């Protein structure tokens, strides 16, 4: 349990659900819905990451597909997510059943795991991967909206931190489980199939926890009475114009600008490798190190965001990223530099991923919460995709140092811009949490 000493919370903005009906508990405790969704993500990540860890080996060594097949599967991964993500957010808001939209997403991914048990050819595996992506795209926005709905505004950052920490724990356990299973089979035979079976089992448990143990939080109409904000306005429908509100637009522009100069950790590891000769075999360990730092720092960063302002922590995360660029670009690595980069990358994710959802959830009316979160996340995903392509081009034509320098300069420009857009200097945490409450009811 995480106990924070805080003053009385500000008024409930915008008809949040009431604790006695939804199981949301006192201010210092973490809402059961958040823990529940954390467990769902933990189980689901064990399921998906155990497969993701061995899928390359499985596809090349066992199924025997070549390089081009991989490129094709990868393209599918990229494309589907963005479209489905927006649709998932919108669907959750319109239906006011975010839990069941998220449930559909988790269930679709679970079904795709069963597909792996029988998929043998190229098309079968491609379909399985595509279906999994549809499920993932669908569920993210509604799930984060549920976390926001279940949280008191002043604990949003911490609650997203709790969720992301559990999520990341699953991402760490999954590959360990997969390799442990593989190691227990004599020559690796049928080890893969067993991993798929375990993956199915964890996926089913994740879906079951969501369906049976996570409260069905809705904004209208029964949960809305007495929240004080909009008496008499029982049913509020989402509108597209909700997504065009200045505050959300500023967040999307800020996050988009920052993401356009954000290079993936894979690239940062490659840059480290280039300068310092980190052996390629340790590549996966770098991901593990970053994930571990993320896991450990997610909750403290979320709490810090609640205390000093989410926008501040969000922007500060990119300052840490800039530090990573500097270490990688100036070849300061060495073991200390390497550990510093992994810590800072983990802290960067802890300061930005959940915090972005926390920020976005307060900038739209509750009726458009899932759409708002989805929109912000989609902007980030697309901008990052663009950044990785741009960085790859730069690296190729101008060399690694120049590419890193360009991205660093971009970040140096984007950080103050984002700070200005998000009113980092003037906005207090209370203002952030009250933002959505202040906008006039639609």
């Amino acid at each position: 349990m995480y106990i924070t000493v805080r003053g009385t919370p500000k008024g409930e903005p915008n008809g949040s659900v009431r604790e006695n009906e939804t199981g949301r508990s006192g201010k210092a405790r973490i809402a059961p819905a958040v823990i529940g969704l954390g467990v769902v993500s933990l189980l689901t990540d064990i399921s998906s990451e155990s497969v993701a860890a061995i899928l390359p080996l499985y596809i090349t060594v066992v199924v025997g597909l070549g390089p081009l097949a991989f490129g094709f599967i990868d393209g599918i991964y990229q494309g589907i997510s963005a479209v489905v993500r927006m649709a998932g957010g919108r669907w959750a808001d319109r239906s006011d059943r975010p839990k069941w939209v998220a449930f559909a997403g988790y269930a679709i991914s679970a079904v795709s795991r069963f597909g792996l048990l029988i998929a043998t050819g190229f098309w079968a595996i491609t379909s399985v991967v595509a279906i999994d992506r549809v499920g993932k795209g669908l569920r993210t926005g509604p799930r984060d909206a549920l976390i926001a709905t279940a949280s008191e505004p002043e604990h949003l950052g911490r609650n997203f931190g709790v969720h992301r920490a559990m999520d990341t724990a699953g991402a760490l356990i999954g590959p360990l489980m997969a390799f442990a299973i593989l190691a227990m089979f004599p020559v690796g035979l049928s080890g893969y199939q067993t991993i798929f079976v375990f993956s199915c089992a964890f996926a089913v448990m994740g879906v079951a926890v969501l369906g049976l143990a996570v409260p069905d939080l809705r904004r209208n109409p029964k949960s809305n009475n007495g929240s004080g904000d909009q008496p008499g306005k029982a049913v509020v429908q989402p509108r597209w114009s909700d997504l065009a509100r200045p505050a959300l637009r500023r967040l999307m522009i800020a996050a988009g600008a920052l993401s356009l100069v954000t290079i993936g950790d894979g690239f940062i590891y490659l840059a480290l490798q280039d300068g310092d000769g980190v052996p390629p075999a340790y590549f996966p360990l770098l991901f593990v190190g970053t994930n571990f730092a993320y896991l450990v720092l997610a909750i403290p960063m979320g709490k810090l965001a609640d205390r000093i302002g989410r926008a501040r922590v969000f922007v500060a995360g990119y300052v840490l990223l800039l530090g990573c660029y500097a270490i990688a670009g100036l070849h300061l690595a060495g073991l200390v530099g390497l550990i510093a980069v992994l810590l800072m990358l983990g802290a960067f994710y802890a300061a930005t991923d959940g915090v972005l959802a926390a920020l976005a959830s307060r900038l739209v009316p509750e009726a458009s919460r899932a759409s708002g979160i989805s929109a912000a996340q989609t902007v980030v995903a697309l901008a990052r995709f663009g950044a990785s392509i741009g960085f790859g081009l730069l690296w190729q034509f101008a060399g690694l140092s120049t590419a890193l320098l360009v991205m660093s300069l971009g970040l140096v420009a984007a950080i103050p811009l984002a700070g200005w857009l998000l009113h980092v200097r003037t906005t207090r945490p209370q203002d952030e949490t009250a933002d959505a409450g202040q906008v006039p009811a639609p």
Partner: protein
Amino acid sequence: MTITRPKLIALIVICVLAVAGAAAYFGYARSSAEEQISSAPAVAQTSDLAALLAQDHVVFRSAALDDTYSKLSVVSLADPGGQRAVLDATCERVYATQAGGVCLTADRGIVTAYGITELDANLSPTASTQLAGSPSRARMSPDGSLISTTTFVTGHAYSDTSFSTDTVIRRTGGDVIGSIEGFDTTVDGHPLTEVDRNFWGVTFVDDDTFYATAASNTIGKTWLVKGSISGRTMTSVRTDAECPSIAPDGTRVAYKTRHGNPAPGHWNIAVLDLATGRETVLAETRSVDDQVEWLDDSTVLYALARDGSEGQSDVWRVPADGSGTPAVFIPNATSPAVVRH
């Protein structure tokens, strides 16, 4: 938690069933794997490696479901289904010439370490270095002085499933010439500069000239390219041709082709006459995803997975002129390399 009793019971039942089911499958799969291995008809083995190496032979990777699985193996060219010598080295991909061989390794674990081990003329390991990414193809120049490797590399892009290939040419003994991605490549008359360009499957004509596959997802094409190591250039010969393999007489190139179908999934083997540009599709109708090896000037070899099996495969042969029917050449084998004296 506000969870009703029936729901709680349902949740517990589902979780218990899921865990028990997975555990039961684990036990079943493990015992049947062990049973399979103990009851597997052991492949006939010989300990006389020297005798096999003294005659024309095939070096390959064992795919027999016993303790020889994925071991470097040798069999006589005169009796490919007969007694095989099984060596200690465990390989994902092998190649060999009279002068020596190469074994690409994957040391599985939480961190899978990939490597390349060079082998001398007796197939004893001489030197090992690390390799970035999981092994896909390996070839050597006819005199054994050059080695090319293709591996899949992760982590180049945002999505953790992103793959690119890394094709490196090195000299026997350890000097790395470099990744052929750094060569100047011209396809269909234009420089190929797309970020997502990939190269794989080198086959050496001699110590300088080679053929390989170039690809770009953006353009949506693959090309057969002819390259020069000294000139650090590659130029396209034709499209829709992957994993080339030059015939011993140097007049033809065999490769896998998708016949213009943009989505990968089904490959046929085709042979291109370099003088006339005529392409002949071979008689194998199943999809082949392998870099073929020439048995002689009129026959090619390739590995095919057995239906419904994880990891079991055989090396097949089919005439290189489009006639005939495929036949098993070496059972329980992959990655063949024909070595003639």
